């Protein structure tokens, strides 16, 4: 990763180096079977979520238009049964994946962007401003995540954006700490001094030198964070804090509970959404651990 000898055409060399690094990364990643399973499952979920609009529409998902039997157990026509409005559970499951994946990824993006920004700036500048920033980070770290997310989701209006913000704003401090530590380590290296001696400004050093070196470690954290965010999304939806008009796995579970599926034992209303949440979260966790194993040589030796 660190800078190599300059060559006649810097961009070509840089691209060749990136290709090599990527190939090496993939070779190490492939050695981890659990990571491969996770990746395959994620590709499948992603494909299903992206292609869902091709064969699903308001016809199947709307409470009014649904024409199936009410709370029917799984059958040939409805492989996963139907809900209390006569909608096919399979359709709800497929459509719900879009919401869960979108919110999970967006919330992670918000928290990683915020965490990376705070971490790099605090690590680069140091001094009292960094102290203040890290104090704020520590304070966020102490607050119970779910309580804060619930508070934010209650205070803001009921929408998808609110859920994304509520999760994103509670999850950034860990990333900020990680990025700051890594920034401090990177800034101590000679090539930063060289960049500074050549006249590189703060922005140049942070964006061109620190950020690329911090990103790989952040990637592992990011993948793990998506898993937490997806579970958090379903939790907020279950507590009735999500957008009630959107089909999501957590929202489906909340409807199931409201419809009395728990006490009447309508298991096909409860099991599929929860299994789907767990499967996606587990896949992201497996991928994240595999990436961590590749990037952190200490973990690899310990295996």
């Amino acid at each position, binding site marked *: 990763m660190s800078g190599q000898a300059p060559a006649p055409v810097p961009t070509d060399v840089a691209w060749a180096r990136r290709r090599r690094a990527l190939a090496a990364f993939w070779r190490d990643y492939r050695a981890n079977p659990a990571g491969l399973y996770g990746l395959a499952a994620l590709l499948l979920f992603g494909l299903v979520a992206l292609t869902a609009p091709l064969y699903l529409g308001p016809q199947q998902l709307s409470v009014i238009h649904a024409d199936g039997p009410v709370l029917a157990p799984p059958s040939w026509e409805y492989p996963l049964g139907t809900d209390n409005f006569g909608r096919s559970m399979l359709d709800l499951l497929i459509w719900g994946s879009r919401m869960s994946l979108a919110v999970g990824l967006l919330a992670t993006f918000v928290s990683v962007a915020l965490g990376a920004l705070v971490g790099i700036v605090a690590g680069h500048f140091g001094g009292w401003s960094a102290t203040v920033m890290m104090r704020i980070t520590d304070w966020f770290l102490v607050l119970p995540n779910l309580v804060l997310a619930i508070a934010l989701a209650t205070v803001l209006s009921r929408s998808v954006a609110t859920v994304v913000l509520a999760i994103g704003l509670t999850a950034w401090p860990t990333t900020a700490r990680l990025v700051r530590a890594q920034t401090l380590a990177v800034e101590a290296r000679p090539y930063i001094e060289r960049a500074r001696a050549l006249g590189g400004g703060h922005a140049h050093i942070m964006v061109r030198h620190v950020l690329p070196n911090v990103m790989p470690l952040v990637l592992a954290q990011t993948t*793990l964070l998506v898993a937490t965010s997806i579970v958090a999304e379903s939790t907020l939806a279950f*507590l009735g804090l999500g957008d009630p008009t959107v089909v999501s796995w957590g929202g489906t579970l909340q409807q199931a509970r409201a419809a009395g599926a728990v006490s009447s034992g309508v298991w096909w209303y409860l099991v599929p959404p929860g299994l789907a*949440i767990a499967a996606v979260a587990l896949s992201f966790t497996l991928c994240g651990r595999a990436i961590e194993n590749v990037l952190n040589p200490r973990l690899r030796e310990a295996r």
Partner: protein
Amino acid sequence: MAQETTTRPPAPADARGGGFGGTGRYLAGRLASAAASLLAVIVSAFFLFRVLPGDPVRAMTHGRAVSREQLEALRAEYGLDQPLWRQFADYLFGMLSGDFGTSYQYRVPVTELIAQRLAPTLLLVGTATLIAAALGLWLGTRAAWYRGGVGDRVNTGVALTLWSVPTFWLGLLLIVVFASGAGPLPSGLFPTGGMISPQAPDGIGAALDVLHHMVLPVTTFVAVVYAQYLMVMRSSLLDEMGSDYLVTARAKGLRDDLVRRRHAVRNALLPTVTLIFVNLGQVVAGTILVETVFSWPGLGSLFYEALGVPDLPMVQAMFVFFSASVILMNLIADLLYPLLDPRVGR
């Protein structure tokens, strides 16, 4: 996934505080920062919940037809007609003197309600945390010591899976399987919720009845929390296992069992115990979900009920209370650390 990332060495700046007063300065610093965090929580709670949608006075009257005068009277009673700075000052002094306000919903002081609901929560959370910690540390130790073996892979796999499962869903599923009568098990094997049945006898019978009610919530709680302890213990023991002192211990001719118990586990426990305290925020989250699903009459379900109204003083007070308990646990972890690890704070 806070397990890897919240491992923060407590106060590295104080680590070499020098001979005289090093520990004292360390303790003072920790205490001051905990007090600052608490104050920040109290202040932000006020402003956070002041922007809640919906008129609290309207919520209080439950949509009944109420005259303007009555609404004004209620506003005056709860101090809602005062300017914001005045409300803030009252709130701040109230909080600092132990007055958390009056619940809109129940019309009694919030502190009274919290006191009522505290015992059931402590019972549930305490039992579950103890079981989870014991189980997690034991299984984590075994997984790391026999790493790569079948036991390690099964344990890690189960832990990761349970970690990915939403807490509330696991609770619902347990109710369906063990309490609702769906599936092969008879209905009513375990109660679907609550803490004690109304017709429970007195004395030992009541205790047994509570125990019966505790099985499912505690199982849910343990399943979700122990996984984290297992993973932390496993990784911190793996960190220790490459160390030279273990080679020395083996070279002395100690049995494998003794090397593990007296040397490796003892050192690996340090970060794990700290993390158990530091990650109490997740225990709070678990409390809210488990109590909501099982209608356990504790603080978590109180919080959930208050959210629906919304009962502003109650939500606010619970927010402060939950945060304060996490801050307190962090402080205890910080204070314990120099005792556990003599290298810190001396």
